[in-house]
């Protein structure tokens, strides 16, 4: 086998700016991404609080809020337009700037190179660019939030023709929507740079002895996710370019002939609104797996570590990740069952969608088998990983229901879908992030987070999210449509109002409980227990180096890998774990 060394030699920079701001060190970049995600998640949560206020108390006027957002209230309760704007920005910020940046770019940047034994990413300059491009995208997205005319109201999926017609589409559909499209296009560029780096690093810069089949499942997950990103984001970019041209260039890629909006007859002709849906969901479905796959990797890794057992059927796990990644490219039509597609097409998409259940079930059963008869250590990281498994199952089961076109005709665009994707994408991925944070925090900052407060945080979060999202299934089954500010005029929904109240209160409690996490995070930076190199007695490479790791990760030593990633409780070994860099004799 060839030597694998970092393709470049670099010295540690000294100035503050080169070290912490325009840094090319993958670890600094990883933390920058995590910080970006933290800011974004805070904004996203505030927006969701505003929405929940409206839903729980439909007629309240909230004078204090009305003072802050005069147009949003216009003297009465929050306007439906303002509600839709909050909804759009909430979804967009969460999906792109939290669920894509934190699990993939954040933890991936920090730990992928170390886990495969590289000193940095393959292209450090490009890596730095990827963060700052993403940062600019975020700034532009915030500009959309405060644009004149208001924030866009077309949802995170920006369905055409509404998103394409410009200001006459409603408030926020002028400058706001244009900024939205530009931000997303910039975001695509940043994500592509990240994906390129991840793939090249894994394929070319692994340490000696780090064969592919010795990579931790976290690295496998980031690798697969990067493939998805590399092939999905260009499609969104193409769609975004065409959408932007429809908005500012007068073309009609997505605007059909004879469209009348607000009594105005548009002159466009021949465009296809469905074309956008195809382009969007061809990206969109892989995107939801971009959000969840790193969480699956983290969960596999952590379940094994804290049950002191090898991952059950490692090869099957790798295969399942790949199968999920591959199948995610041929299921996008399940978002479009209601678009008038032929029943045969719908059946094909239904079958491919259900096929995702097979590798998903493989993963779930292997997680359970990993736990089976393990010596389980209930650390915070472990608890959040167990929570991830629970949420993944709860959300996956409803996915199977939605995959039936006949059922979906009823459930599409109801709260049932909202419940499904929040549980599986929103919350499961967030639990993956939390698990990763409690697990890797000591490595990143040299100190442990407070376990006691972490557990309080966990229980509030787990019970909280189930209280929030489980009842939404009932709303959906009762026919409650999504993306409406207020449904008090509909008799058949009136009796469900208490449920909305319950959900909102649960949401406020759960969101407040996140303060515990933020407090723990910042408190532990200074006051946490010193971590040492390997507080969890883990096996992968990042635990063989100091916490936090030195600039080039491994110092003067070139890491050489002699073991698989999950050699826990090997009979006859001196300790109950063998690190990947331990000498070959460690395994008797």
């Amino acid at each position, binding site marked *: 086998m060839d030597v694998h*060394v970092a393709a470049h030699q670099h010295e540690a920079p000294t100035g503050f700016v080169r070290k912490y701001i325009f840094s090319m060190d993958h670890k600094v970049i990883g933390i920058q991404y995590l910080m970006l995600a933290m800011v974004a998640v805070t904004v996203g949560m505030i927006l969701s609080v505003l929405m929940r206020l409206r839903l729980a108390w439909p007629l309240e006027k909230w004078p204090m809020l009305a003072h802050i957002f005069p147009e949003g209230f216009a003297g009465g309760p929050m306007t439906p337009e303002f509600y839709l704007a909050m909804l759009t920005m909430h979804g967009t910020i969460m999906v792109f700037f939290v669920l894509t940046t934190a699990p993939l770019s954040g933890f991936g940047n920090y730990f992928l190179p170390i886990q495969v034994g590289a*000193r940095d990413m393959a292209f450090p300059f490009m890596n730095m660019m990827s963060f700052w491009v993403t940062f600019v995208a975020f700034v532009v997205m915030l500009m959309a939030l405060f644009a004149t005319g208001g924030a866009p109201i077309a949802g995170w999926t920006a369905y055409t023709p509404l998103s394409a017609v410009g200001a006459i589409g409603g408030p926020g559909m002028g400058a706001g929507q244009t900024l939205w499209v530009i931000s997303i296009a910039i975001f695509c560029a940043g994500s592509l740079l990240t994906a390129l780096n991840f793939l090249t690093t894994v394929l070319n810069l692994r340490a000696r002895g780090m064969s592919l089949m010795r990579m931790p499942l976290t690295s496998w997950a980031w690798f697969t996710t990067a493939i998805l990103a590399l092939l999905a984001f*260009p499609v969104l*970019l193409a769609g975004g370019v065409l959408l932007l041209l429809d908005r500012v260039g007068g073309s009609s*890629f997505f605007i059909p002939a004879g469209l009348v909006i607000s009594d105005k007859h548009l002159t466009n002709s021949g465009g*296809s609104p469905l074309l956008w849906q195809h*382009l969007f969901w061809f990206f969109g479905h892989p995107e939801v797996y971009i959000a969840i796959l790193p969480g699956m990797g983290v969960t596999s890794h952590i379940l094994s570590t804290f049950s002191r057992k090898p991952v059950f059927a490692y090869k099957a796990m790798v295969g399942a990740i790949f199968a999920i990644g591959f199948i995610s490219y041929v299921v996008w039509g399940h978002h479009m069952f209601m678009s008038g597609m032929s029943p045969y097409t719908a059946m094909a998409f239904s079958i491919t969608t259900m096929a995702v259940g097979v590798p998903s079930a493989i993963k779930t059963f292997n997680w359970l088998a990993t736990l089976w008869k393990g010596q389980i250590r209930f650390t915070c990281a472990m608890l959040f990983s167990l929570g991830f498994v629970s949420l993944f199952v709860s959300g996956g089961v409803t996915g199977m229901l939605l995959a039936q076109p006949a059922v979906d005709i009823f459930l599409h665009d109801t709260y049932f879908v909202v419940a499904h994707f929040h549980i599986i994408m929103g919350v499961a991925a967030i639990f993956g992030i939390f698990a990763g944070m409690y697990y890797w925090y000591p490595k990143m900052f040299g100190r442990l987070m407070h376990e006691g407060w972490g557990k309080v945080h966990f229980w509030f979060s787990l019970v909280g999210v189930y209280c929030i999202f489980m009842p939404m299934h009932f709303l959906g089954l009762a026919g409650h449509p999504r993306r409406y500010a207020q449904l008090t005029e509909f008799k058949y929904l009136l009796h469900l109002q208490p449920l909305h109240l319950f959900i909102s209160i649960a949401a406020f409690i759960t969101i407040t409980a996140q303060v515990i996490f933020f407090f723990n995070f910042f408190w532990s930076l200074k006051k946490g227990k010193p971590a040492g190199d390997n507080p969890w007695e883990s096996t992968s490479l990042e635990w063989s180096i100091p916490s936090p790791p030195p600039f080039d990760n491994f110092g*003067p030593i*070139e890491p050489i890998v002699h073991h698989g990633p999950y050699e826990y409780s090997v009979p006859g070994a001196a300790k109950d774990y063998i690190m990947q860099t331990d000498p070959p004799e460690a395994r008797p």
Partner: protein
Amino acid sequence: MSVSTLELPLGPPPADPRVSLRTSLLGMKLALAAIGMLFTAFTSAYVVRHALDPDWHAVPMPRIMIANTLALVISSLSLEVYRRHRQERLWLTLSQAMGVLFVAGQVFAWRQLQSRGVYLSNNPHAAFFYVLTAAHGLHILGGLFALGGITVVAQERRFRWLEAASLYWHFMGALWLYLLFLLFGMN
């Protein structure tokens, strides 16, 4: 080939040129995969939009684009000659000049269409023409930057820069032929 890391003195190992070359080429191939996906998405939009539109009027190809195509092909070929022999700077200069000529010719083609009253907004075929050639053109500008870099970058990076830039440039040439076929070959 194998250099044992065990024999290396302490301290970060010297950057191995073979690894660097492989890494650059792999990075470039992945970038090309992404670019390929971008144009695949445009293609599918083109096919769908074409099939749906009852009043799709194909714009005839501006004549100058034949010359442009020739320039791009010559550019690719001369770059290949330079890559193989590397002594004759002339081939590189020729390649760069032909690339610039291509861009100039494309600008001319755009202006010609506009002077005939063909805009983004009034003809879907023209809209795709503008989008596809502009997207390709931006990539060509990036490629010209890369070709310019070959003789500018530090000596030890020069070789892999040239290899990666050639790969990119040939891809752009092939992509151009494909776009011509897509836009004008099927009408």
